[in-house]
């Protein structure tokens, strides 16, 4: 990597870190590119040479965070034990544990997923293949073990679980719930769906 590339990379890191903190401290809407540049100690122009928009900055902040989370999952997944429902509960509990450290940031991520953007650099919540495939894998395994009905539309189940998962963050925001409280609610929601997927 040349010196120029190295500098570019360093700017990028600084911008993402500053944006992550600002989005979480004062909120996404209130954060301007100018404020991000200021906190990162770079010029506004150099933010714009790296990212096309604030939405793209948010998307990259999340992508990087989730990258860390998912490499953790690569390590943990093979050790998940218990029923299909138990495994799903564990996966979501780990997510809550991770994201409740920066609730406001995550809420901004969900909010952005309802604002369409055709910019190529953006992956909204709900389009994260990694989470979806992890959940489908657990369910598929459940089908193999005879715990889950084999005529179930697994993608539909996964999308529904993700909807509950996201909605529960509002509790965290509105009532100051912690990861444990959110996981407890999610466990009950998963339990309810598990009742429905049981072969009969």
């Amino acid at each position, binding site marked *: 990597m040349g010196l120029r590339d190295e500098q570019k990379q360093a700017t990028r890191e600084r911008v993402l870190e500053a944006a992550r903190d600002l989005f979480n401290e004062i*909120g*996404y*809407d209130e954060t301007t590119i100018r404020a991000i540049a200021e906190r990162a100690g770079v010029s506004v122009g150099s933010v714009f040479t790296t990212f096309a928009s604030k939405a793209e900055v948010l998307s990259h902040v999340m992508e990087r965070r989730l990258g860390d989370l998912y490499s953790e999952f690569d390590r943990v997944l093979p050790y998940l034990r218990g029923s299909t429902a138990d495994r799903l509960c564990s996966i979501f509990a780990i997510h809550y544990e991770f994201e409740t450290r920066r609730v*406001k940031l995550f*809420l*901004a991520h*969900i*909010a*952005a*997923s*309802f*604002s*369409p953007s055709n910019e190529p650099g953006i992956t*909204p919540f*709900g389009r994260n293949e990694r989470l979806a495939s992890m959940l489908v894998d657990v369910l598929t395994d459940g089908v193999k073990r005879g715990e889950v009905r084999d005529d*179930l*539309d697994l993608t*539909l*189940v996964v*999308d*529904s679980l*993700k*909807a*509950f998962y*996201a*909605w529960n963050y*509002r509790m965290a*925001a*509105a009532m100051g719930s912690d990861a444990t409280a959110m996981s407890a609610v999610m466990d*009950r*929601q998963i339990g*309810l*769906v*598990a*009742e*429905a*997927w*049981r072969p009969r």
Partner: protein
Amino acid sequence: MSFVSLNFESPTEAPIKLTRRAMAKQRTRERVLSSARRLFSERGYEGTTIRDIAQVAGMSTGAVFASFADKAELFDEILTADYEVVIAQMAVAAREGATVEASLLGLFDVAYRFHTEQLPLTRASIAVSWTRSDVAERRYRNDLLQVFRLLADCLQRGVAQGELKADFDAKLVAEIIWDMYVANYRRAIYDSWSAEALLERLAKQLRIVLAGVRA
């Protein structure tokens, strides 16, 4: 079915014995609301400023601020007006269904059709709802209570009719049905799904969830 919202540009019956001043104030409010509705629908929440709204309404920003404290209050007022219209129609549709599934689908059919007809406004309202202040969130939760009551009624009737078992957590079921309903709007936003397609998807999701609580 056509939906008539309370603050579309339409002359409302003036209550009797309003002073001229009060009437003028009322008219200003209505002009602001209808301009705001138009701009929020076209440009979304973030893309609309009080200055734009004032310009479209043909008045000063000061005059807008005389009627509304800020953009959030203006936006909420529009949503509440819509909400009152749509919730009444959802209630009617819910009563018409013979089974739990039919009444739930009936009420969500109303909601999907209403909200996809003005998708930019819907999109803005969902997006904003995730990042609003605590006060706004509490107000929103109040509105939501009405929907949850409707959903609970449908589920209750299902129990009474012997379709659903008696001992399930109706609140939890109502909540997850609502989560699925809202999340499906992403399909309308990103993939241009129609109200019919959204409802069809929700029908499949409902079938999965209800399977767990059937008698």
